[in-house]
């Protein structure tokens, strides 16, 4: 039996969990190759033009899976992973968009509703659907969930150590071994604010993290900050954004503003992202208050790598000069 997971959206956050779970049950996991021009084009062709790029890419990956011939496709409906908080409406309606857009795809889709108390979604009710669909016993199911839960926890731990989600995912799954040496402290540290599915999809973000590291910049992202630190930041806001990941991003943004070790912020956002239009504006308005440079990079299906290179180079140069100036002045 083969189950397909599109390499898009929350794949970058939950892949270790999903992979462990399915493999523990003896199911082969098939995921798509990294996003390519062809995959994006397929997605664009089959979706409403106004949709944001990540969703279009998801649809592209999904179609690729069907081409490849899998038995089932795992398309979870993310509703809430924190009490009183939701996902973006497009996440919540994603399975509906897909099953009503393509004829006969519904039988192949497995659509569990994901609702959990915290980020670790390895809870029995989120995976109960497989018992009936794939004929698994409750005992085996629970055992697989427990293992998935542990693997995901170790993934989070690696993230907190300062590994990017991609690296942490490989580490947690044992694909690579911890070298013991994290990237050494660089001369400039930049906080990158962006969703996992934008930052780690090298086609969308054009590998911005790698590019920054090559420029002798150490990078911090939201998943490297511990949960309770983020939650504390949110308490200072009079009303929080009610989308879980946007909330994390804005809390990370303010943590970066407050952190004296961080020299500047880059906000990576996809064209047409609704929640980002709000949180980006708030962070932008606060940039002069905290006296830290802030830059927005908006990405879409048109890839122009050179402009990105130029912009981040200029941004990093500006920060370096500012630091030299400050040192001279002191």
């Amino acid at each position, binding site marked *: 039996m083969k189950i397909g997971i599109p390499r898009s959206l929350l794949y970058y956050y939950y892949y270790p969990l999903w992979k462990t779970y399915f493999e523990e049950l003896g199911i082969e996991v098939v995921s798509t190759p990294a996003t390519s021009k062809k995959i994006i084009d397929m997605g664009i062709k089959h*979706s*409403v033009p*106004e*949709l944001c790029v990540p969703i279009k890419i998801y649809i592209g990956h999904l179609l690729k899976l069907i081409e490849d011939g899998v038995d089932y496709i795992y398309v979870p*409906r993310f*509703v809430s992973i924190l009490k*009183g*908080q*939701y*996902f*973006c*409406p*497009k996440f*919540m*309606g*994603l399975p*509906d*968009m897909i099953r*009503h*857009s393509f004829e006969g795809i519904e039988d192949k889709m497995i659509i569990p*509703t994901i609702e959990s108390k915290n980020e670790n979604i390895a809870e029995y009710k989120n995976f109960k659907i497989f018992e009936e669909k794939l004929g698994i016993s409750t005992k085996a199911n629970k055992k697989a969930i427990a293992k998935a839960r542990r693997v995901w926890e170790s993934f989070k731990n690696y993230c907190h150590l300062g590994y990017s989600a991609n690296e942490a995912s490989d580490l947690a799954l044992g694909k690579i071994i911890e070298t013991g040496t994290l990237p050494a402290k660089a001369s400039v540290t930049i906080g990158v604010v962006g969703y996992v599915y934008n930052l780690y999809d090298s086609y969308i973000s054009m590998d911005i993290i790698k590019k920054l590291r090559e420029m002798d910049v150490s990078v911090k992202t939201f998943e490297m900050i511990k949960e309770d630190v983020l939650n504390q930041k949110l308490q200072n806001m*009079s*009303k929080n*954004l*009610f*989308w879980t990941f946007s909330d994390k991003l804005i809390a990370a943004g303010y943590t970066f503003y407050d952190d004296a070790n961080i020299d500047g912020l880059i906000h990576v956002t996809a*064209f*047409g*992202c*609704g*929640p*980002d*239009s*709000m949180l*980006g*504006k*708030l962070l932008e*308005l606060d940039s002069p208050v905290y006296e830290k440079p802030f830059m927005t990079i908006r990405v879409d299906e048109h890839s122009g790598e050179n402009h990105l290179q130029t912009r981040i180079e200029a941004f990093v140069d500006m920060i370096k000069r500012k630091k030299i100036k400050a040192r001279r002045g002191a």
Partner: protein
Amino acid sequence: MKVSFPYMGTTIVYKKLLELLGHEVVMPPKPSQYTINLGVKYSPEFACFPLKVITGSYIEAAELGAEVIVTSGGHGPCRAGFYEQVHRRILEEKGFNVDFIVFNSMFRDFKQFFANMMMLKGTNSWFKIAQSLLMVYDMIKKLDILEKRVQELRAYELKKGETTKAWEQIQIGFDKASSKKDLQQAFNNGEVLLNQIKTFNIYDKDRIRIGIVGEIYVVMESSINMKMEELLGNLGAEVERSQYLSEWVAYNALPGFMNRTHEVEILKKGEPYIPINIGGHAKQTVGHIVDYSQRGFDGVIHLMPFGCLPELVSQSIVPKISQALDIPVLTLSIDEQSGTANSLTRVEAFMDLIKGKRMKKIS
């Protein structure tokens, strides 16, 4: 305390309520190109269109001296729940000192709701409050009854534009009313006005009925949806909107277990397509299209602000519903680029298609 509010639909209703409570009301001007320009200039680039228009209209109200803005809130997942936070920051940035009173759902945070009520209540007695609320609700209902007639009559008037004029007069009449008796009087006057309009006769089977569905702001606010209702009326179609203020109030003011409003039924009809509430009016949109097709409407116009998160989901599903139920649906996405001629052509073509479909059925 000079109070203002976001401009949407029949604004005299909000004005009346605040006036009855003894506040000085700063009426925001009807959204114009100037309002939109202001809003676009100061709002986040990718924010949805209603946010931009409301930003513009707040700035205009603040320039007129508004000190407090009363608005509704929300808790997601649609962006509308966060409007007030962004607006607050934008107005602050512009140097206006404006307070916000935000009404979130009273079932979620009653304490806050109560505190807001107390602020608006001032020195009025609770009896007065209840009386005012009931009176305004009565007013909304009466206005909606008349508006539904207006939407029907407009298609058959002999002198183009007469109905619209009458509707404006009716609103002025209601605006002046300050007691229950006045309201009844204004309602009666309105009916007389509408009865005077000369129409041509039409057989029942020749009537063309179009439903307008979509996000509440672009559906209700005629100044930003290119006066879609008038446009359709002038092209000879009766129009019904998916949102009326009275229905919205009834649905939102009643707790779940005793909610028997029409909207509950609509939501049920949307269930096969979108099983859970994904925020905004996506589920209602889908439900209304099903409802209109069951009631034998000839077509549906689906209005959405550009980039609206929930409506994008419904937009993706619309082709399937349209095909399954055999009802034409035209989706128009609305933003600050108001190419009126473009939309006009599309709506005209849509009407031709509906008429053509009918001819084919007969022959």
